[in-house]
């Protein structure tokens, strides 16, 4: 029997975390089993701990100055490049969605297309949101007065559980397009598309630390992010337990984080609006006298 006739043994991937542009294992050494929609084993995935969350926050903080200081045009270009690379991973995402979400090939294909299109949509916002969300203010006096949106800072995102790619992109892209840096906790039962996205990001022009992705249980990691004093905002999108969400919102009050409450809208809409961008934008108003 020739080699080509033998069933080839697949080389499996080790799924790790994505922090500061690298792929570390969890410092806790823990993993958990990601299963397909039929309950069959897919992979062992690194399971993030409190320490991993803190490392991810420091990486995101370190990256904030550069990313928020980059020109919006540059951010838009860098994010658009990610979309180009997502196209190249289409098959991989599709098979992960088929396995993880239990959708058929056409449904998975549609979700991948929608996710890529959504990424492009937000990439295009990077250099437009200031004009739409800022203002020139007609004050009653000899002053030039204008207001501009600026990113809030480091934003923690607890991604939706069910929509593991489109949902993820829908909560992540608005945060980074506006110049924030992000720490994402991916869908606990369906972490693989997030990890594939991490591989795309690692080879893209997005600087390390701008997007950090933790696989793990949001009930375990989320509260640490909610109470972390160097996190400026938190999106509770994927927190389905109301008591847990309330506890995290309470913890977030310690440093008055900007909080987006849990929401599981239909992700496959044509126009998601700007309401996932504005909560993580601060308005800065600048005054200067006018005179000779």
């Amino acid at each position, binding site marked *: 029997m020739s080699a080509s006739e033998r069933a080839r043994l697949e080389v499996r991937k080790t799924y790790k975390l994505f922090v500061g542009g690298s792929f570390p294992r969890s410092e806790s050494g823990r993993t958990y089993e990601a299963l397909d929609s039929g309950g069959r084993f897919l992979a062992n995935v690194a399971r993030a701990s409190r320490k991993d969350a803190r490392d991810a926050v420091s990486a995101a903080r370190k990256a904030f100055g550069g990313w928020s200081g980059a020109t919006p045009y540059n951010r838009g270009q860098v994010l658009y490049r990610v979309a180009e690379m997502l196209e190249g991973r289409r098959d991989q995402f599709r098979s992960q969605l088929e396995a993880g979400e239990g959708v058929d090939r056409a449904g998975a294909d549609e979700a991948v297309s929608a996710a890529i299109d959504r990424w492009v949509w937000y990439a295009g916002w990077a250099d437009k949101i200031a004009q*739409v*969300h800022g*203002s020139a*203010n*007609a*004050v*009653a*006096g000899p*002053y030039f*007065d204008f*207001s501009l949106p600026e990113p*809030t800072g480091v934003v923690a995102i607890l991604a939706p559980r069910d929509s593991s790619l489109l949902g993820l992109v829908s909560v992540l892209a608005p945060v980074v397009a506006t110049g924030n840096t992000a720490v994402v906790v991916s869908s606990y039962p369906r972490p693989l598309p997030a990890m594939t996205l991490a591989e795309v990001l690692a080879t893209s022009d997005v600087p390390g630390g701008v997007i950090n992705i933790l696989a793990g249980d949001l009930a375990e990691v989320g509260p640490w992010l909610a109470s972390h004093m160097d996190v*400026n905002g938190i999106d509770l999108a994927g927190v389905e337990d*109301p*008591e847990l*969400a*309330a*506890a995290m*919102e*309470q913890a*977030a*009050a*310690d*440093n*008055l984080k*900007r909080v987006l409450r849990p929401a599981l809208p239909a992700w496959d809409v044509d126009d998601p*609006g700007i309401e996932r961008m*504005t909560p993580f934008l*601060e*308005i*800065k*108003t*600048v*005054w*200067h*006298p006018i005179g000779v």
Partner: protein
Amino acid sequence: MFEYAPAPESRSVVDIASSYGLFINGGFVDSADGRTFKTISPASEEVLAEVTEAGPADVDAAVTAARRAYDSVWSTMPGRERAKYLYRIARILAERAREFAVLETLDNGKPIRESRDVDIPLASAWFFYYAGWADKLSYAGFGAYPQPLGVAGQIIPWNFPLMMLSWKIAPALAAGNTVVLKPAETTPLTALLFASVCQQADLPPGVVNILTGAGATGQSLVAHPDVDKIAFTGSTEVGKAIARAVAGTPKRVTLELGGKAANVVFDDAPIDQAVEGIVNGIFFNQGHVCCAGSRLLVQESVYAEVLDRLKRRMATLRLGDPLDKNTDVGAINSREQLTRIRELSEVGDAEGAQRWSAPCELPEHGFWFPPTIFTGVTQAHRIAREEIFGPVLSILTFRTPAEAVEKANNTPYGLSAGVWTEKGSRILWLADRLRAGVVWANTFNRFDPTSPFGGYKESGHGREGGRHGLAAYLR
């Protein structure tokens, strides 16, 4: 300093009742449990009036009235009609401006010059500006059919009582909400007089309800299940408590909290103008200003000159009778606040900073604190970190622009900042890097209803003023 003859504004323009009820559903009513408290003039400690302390039953009655008005009248009224009510209120406030200014100065202690020229005109302007939004909401950038939230519970501080009322009520009503507003316990009188403005304007009963009381009244309002929105201006500590209290509820919240603003003076700044800006930044309203420029950062090369001119300017400030039109610095709002200012200033002494106060005589009665600066302050000192909310300035120095940014941003707050330099590119460079919601360049403490105001970080979230201010009251 020149001797000026006293020029007191007459008190006769305002009639203060001996006691006030709660303004619920268009009329004044007694509280369910009959509790009252007194409000005094901080300049003389004279009792001005007895005011009702609203309890949970009163809060419930007010919220019920606001809900009924929301459902039956206000949310269904065409925007152009709501607008006309707000225009009326703006006009009545302007017509009765002197009455409001005198009452504000009596109850708050601030100089009549400020209540007359700043507080009351801005309150009227705020209503006039938001009146015009009421029938243009679909152009405000929140979608084609933005909807009001419902009943707004609003809690305001004692430093700009009527102005803060206008910042809260005007956008809420323009957007179609009804309100229950609680003024601060030491300054309830202009809010109660505002109730009579609502009556004169024929505002439908229940659209605006005013509950006097202290912290417990505010807590009841925040906790009331039929309130859809909480808007609060006050301390960061209470702001955090409110954020915790609304967690897990559908209530929306905006918070405008404390600050410790840096006022940055570069060596090329026009020094005389900068000194005026420093004085305005910290001594305006006795420093009872959340966005006060309470940390002065001076470039080392001009430190001696700035300090010298600042002291000379401070020596000309006139402290005394707030009703006197010549007065620059009025009374501290309450004994409690005076105690806090004294304590933190003593901490400044104990930590090794050098105190200098303007040489001025303090009146015998009432609550007074002289305009004061501390030099030799480091970033670790409590007077450089904590909000004093009084006429106390901490002075630090810097050498490079980068160091100025580093020091200015070294605070959990982020409400405002000032920059003084002749170089335009440097202003914009700094404005870009200061983590603060308002940056005043070559000016300070300017406010306008068209101009969004609010904080970064622990100075709160949400904006008041401008198109952005409507976001707090629409969905």
